[in-house]
C-alpha cells in the first residue's frame, strides 16, 4: 500500500490558544469592555514577530479590517486603529503544538512535528484500523474541532507533497492516487519548500523565467536535465515530493514524565487566583494519567516569580490520585497558607512518579450506611483512610500528622516515639523512593532501633480488648524528656528497674515508681543516680 500522509497546519496557533485555554480570559485581559454586547466578538488582534516587526498571526476580526499576515506593524495600525498587538512567542507555540501531538497520539501512531505550527501524520498504517480514510478523518476532526483552532489540512503520498498541497489547496483530502497527482501537478511552485531559503528563491526566479510555474511542469522535465541546470536542492525537493527521499526523520514520542508549564499573560499576586490556571494544568495531568491508566503520588509545582527565586511546592497524596478535583482540593489547602512574595509569571507542574492504577475498591453503597453501628461489620476502605491522611498532611504539614510507633526498646523515650507519618511509605508502594530527609529529625540511635520494630498482627490486637497480661503498665502521656521531679508523690508499692542501653551512648539505669500527687494525678517517676525525674502521667 502506498504511503499516505496528512499535513495539519494551524495558521494561528498561538493566537487561538490564547482564547482557547480555559484559564486565560483574554478579552478581559485586553481591556475589552466586559459588558459591551451580549455576544462580544473578539477585538482585532494580531501577533507581532519581535524580530522582523511583521504581523505573524491574526484573527478574523483583524482580517476583516484588511490586515494580512506579513504586513508591517505601521501598515496594519493604519488600517485598523484599535488593533491589539501581542508578541509572538515561538516556544509557547511549540509547547502548544506538542500538546496537540500528545492528544492526537491517541488516535494516530506516527506523528511528526513541523515546528512551529504544523504536524505530519502518517496515516496509511491507521487506515486498516479505522476502516478507510473517511472514518479516520471523522475521528480526527472530532478531536481537532474540540481544540477550537483554525486548521488546514491536506493528504498526499509523501510528507512534502502533503505540505505543499496544504499550502496551495488547503482542505484537499483524498486517497485516490490519480486525484492527488493531478492536484499536485497544478500546485504553483511558489508554495514549495524552495521559498524558505535564499538560494531556493533564486532557483524559483530562474524557473519562472523559464516559464515553469507549476509542479507538473517541473516534474515533466527529465531529472538529468534538471541536475545539470540547477543545484542539488531542486532534486532533493523533487525526491521528497515524490516520496523517494524521506522528509520526516523523527516521529513524536510522548514524554516519559508529565511536565507542563503555563506562562501567565498577567501577573498574579494572590495565591487564591492561582486556582484557575492550576486547575487547567491539573486537567492536563488528569488526561495524561487517565490515558495511561496511572496515578501519581507526588506532584511538584514550580512557581516562577518576578525578581525572586522560584518557589517549589511539593504535594503528596498517600493513595495516589489522578483526578483533577482531588488534587485541586489538596493544592487549595496548600495555597491557603502560601503568600506570594512577588508576582507570579509562570507555573510548572510536574509529576514525579506515576504508577499503574489498581482499581479503587470503593464501596458501592457508601462507606457506612446510616443506622449501622460501628461494630456491625462495616468496613473502611484503605483508600479512604489514605485520602484523609493526604488531606490532613496537605493542610497541617506532614510533620504534624504523626503516627504512633512501637519500638523494641525498654527506654520509654525510644519505645513510644511518634514520628511524622511518611505518606508514601505508609502505602508501601514506593518504598524505594522514600525520602530520606524525613528521618533526619529522629535521633540516630532511634534509626538503628527501627529495624527492631515490634510487630504485632493487628488481628491479634483487635481481638484482645482486655490488656494482655505480659504488657507492662505504661502511661498514656509522656513528657518529651524527663524533667526533675518537683512535687510530692505518694508512691505505690513496687518498682520497676530499667537498665539498658549499655551498647549505645544512651545508657540508663532507672528505678520507676508509680505515684499520686496532691492534685490526684498519677505520675510515672524514676530515680537514678542523679535524682528523681518525672517521665509521664497515667492519663
Amino acid at each position: 500500500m502506498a504511503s499516505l500522509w496528512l499535513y495539519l497546519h494551524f495558521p494561528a496557533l498561538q493566537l487561538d490558544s490564547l482564547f482557547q485555554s480555559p484559564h486565560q480570559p483574554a478579552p478581559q485581559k485586553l481591556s475589552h469592555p466586559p459588558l459591551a454586547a451580549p455576544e462580544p466578538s473578539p477585538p482585532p488582534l494580531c501577533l507581532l514577530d519581535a524580530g522582523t516587526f511583521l504581523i505573524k498571526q491574526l484573527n478574523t476580526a483583524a482580517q476583516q479590517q484588511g490586515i494580512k499576515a506579513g504586513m508591517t506593524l505601521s501598515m496594519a495600525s493604519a488600517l485598523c486603529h484599535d488593533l491589539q498587538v501581542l508578541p509572538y512567542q515561538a516556544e509557547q507555540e511549540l509547547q502548544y503544538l506538542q500538546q496537540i501531538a500528545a492528544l492526537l497520539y491517541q488516535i494516530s501512531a506516527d506523528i511528526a512535528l513541523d515546528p512551529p505550527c504544523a504536524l505530519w501524520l502518517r496515516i496509511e498504517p491507521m487506515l486498516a484500523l479505522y476502516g478507510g480514510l473517511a472514518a479516520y478523518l471523522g475521528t480526527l476532526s472530532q478531536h481537532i474541532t474540540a481544540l477550537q483552532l483554525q486548521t488546514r489540512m491536506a493528504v498526499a503520498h509523501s510528507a512534502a507533497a502533503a505540505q505543499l498541497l496544504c499550502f496551495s489547496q488547503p482542505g484537499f483530502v483524498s486517497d485516490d492516487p490519480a486525484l492527488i497527482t493531478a492536484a499536485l501537478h497544478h500546485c504553483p511552485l511558489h508554495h514549495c519548500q524552495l521559498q524558505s531559503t535564499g538560494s531556493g528563491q533564486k532557483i524559483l526566479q530562474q524557473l519562472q523565467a523559464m516559464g515553469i510555474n507549476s509542479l507538473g511542469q517541473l516534474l515533466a522535465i527529465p531529472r538529468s536535465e534538471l541536475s545539470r541546470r540547477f543545484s542539488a536542492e531542486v532534486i532533493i525537493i523533487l525526491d521528497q515530493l515524490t516520496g523517494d527521499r524521506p522528509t520526516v526523520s523523527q516521529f513524536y514520542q510522548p514524554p516519559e514524565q508529565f511536565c507542563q508549564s503555563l506562562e501567565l499573560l498577567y501577573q498574579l499576586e494572590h495565591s487564591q487566583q492561582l486556582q484557575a490556571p492550576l486547575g487547567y494544568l491539573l486537567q492536563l495531568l488528569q488526561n495524561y494519567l487517565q490515558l495511561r491508566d496511572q496515578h501519581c503520588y507526588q506532584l511538584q509545582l514550580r512557581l516562577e516569580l518576578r525578581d525572586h527565586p522560584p518557589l517549589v511546592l511539593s504535594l503528596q497524596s498517600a493513595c495516589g490520585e489522578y483526578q483533577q478535583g482531588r488534587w485541586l482540593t489538596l493544592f487549595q489547602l496548600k495555597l491557603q497558607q502560601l503568600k506570594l512574595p512577588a508576582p507570579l509569571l509562570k507555573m510548572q507542574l510536574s509529576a514525579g512518579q506515576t504508577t499503574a492504577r489498581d482499581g479503587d475498591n470503593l464501596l458501592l453503597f457508601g462507606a457506612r450506611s446510616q443506622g449501622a453501628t460501628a461494630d456491625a461489620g462495616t468496613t473502611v476502605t484503605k483508600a479512604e483512610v489514605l485520602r484523609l491522611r493526604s488531606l490532613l498532611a496537605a493542610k497541617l504539614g506532614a510533620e504534624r500528622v504523626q503516627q504512633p510507633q512501637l519500638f523494641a526498646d525498654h527506654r520509654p523515650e525510644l519505645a513510644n516515639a511518634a514520628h511524622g507519618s511518611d505518606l508514601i511509605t505508609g502505602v508501601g508502594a514506593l518504598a524505594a523512593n522514600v525520602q530520606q530527609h524525613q528521618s533526619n529529625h529522629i535521633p540516630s540511635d532511634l534509626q538503628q532501633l527501627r529495624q527492631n520494630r515490634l510487630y504485632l498482627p493487628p488481628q491479634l490486637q483487635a481481638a484482645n480488648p482486655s490488656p494482655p497480661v505480659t504488657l507492662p503498665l505504661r502511661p498514656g502521656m509522656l513528657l518529651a524528656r524527663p524533667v526533675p521531679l518537683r512535687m510530692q508523690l505518694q508512691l505505690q508499692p513496687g518498682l520497676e528497674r530499667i537498665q539498658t542501653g549499655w551498647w549505645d551512648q544512651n545508657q540508663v539505669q532507672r528505678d520507676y515508681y508509680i505515684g499520686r500527687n496532691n492534685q490526684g494525678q498519677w505520675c510515672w517517676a524514676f530515680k537514678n543516680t542523679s535524682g528523681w525525674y518525672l517521665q509521664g502521667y497515667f492519663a
Partner: protein
Amino acid sequence: MSTVSELKASGHIWSLHDQASPGTVLSTGFAELDQLLAGGFPAHTVIELHSPIGIGELRLLLPCLTRSQASSQLLVLINPPMLIGSQMLQAAGLAVEQVLVLQPASAQDALWAAEQCLKSGCCGSVVLWQSTLSIAQLKRLQLCAQHGMASLFIFRGQQQSQLLLPIALSLQVSPALQGVKVQVLKRRGGWPMAPVLVDMTARWPRLAVQNAAANSALVLSHSA
C-alpha cells in the same frame, strides 16, 4: 400556657415523654458509668469532658475508643498536651497503626482537622484537646460527627464559668483514690444525678490507692 409551648418550641424546655427514645449508645466499659449515662456515651455526637490532665481521664475513654476502632477505623488524637504513649495504646488493645496523632499549629487548624476526620467516615472516634469552643463551632462538629458516624470527645480542662453549650453530654471528671469521679454537668434527655465513682481498680490495680494509710512513702524533690 402559650409561654410554655413557646419555650417548648424553641427547645428551651422539654418534657420527658416528648423525648424520643435515646439513640444508639456506646458502652463506656464501666458499669457504674453506663448506669449513670443510661447505657453509655451517646453515639455519633460531641461529648465534652472537663478534667485535669493525668488523673485517668484518657483511661476512662479507652474501652470505648478500643471498641470504636473496630472494623479498621481510625482513632485520631488531636492536640494532646503531651506525647501519647504507644505502649499504653497497645496495652489497651488499640491497633497502633490505626491511630493518628495530629499536632496542628493553631486552634483553628485543630477544629478543621477534627471536622475533616469526623466527616471522612473512616474515623471511629476523634479525641480533641481544646479549651475554647463556640456554639457555632460545636454545631459544625456535631453535624460532621453525625454525617461521618463518628464520636468526638473534647477534653476542655477545668470547667470555666461560661454558658453551657448545647451539647449532648458534658461530664466533669475529678480525681479519686480508686479511679475517677464523674459528674454529669449536662445530658440531653437526662436530669441531674449524684456524681459516681468509676472504679478502675479491676483494670488498673496499680493505679488505685487500696489502703491510704498503709503505704505513705513520701518523696520530696531535691530542689524543695
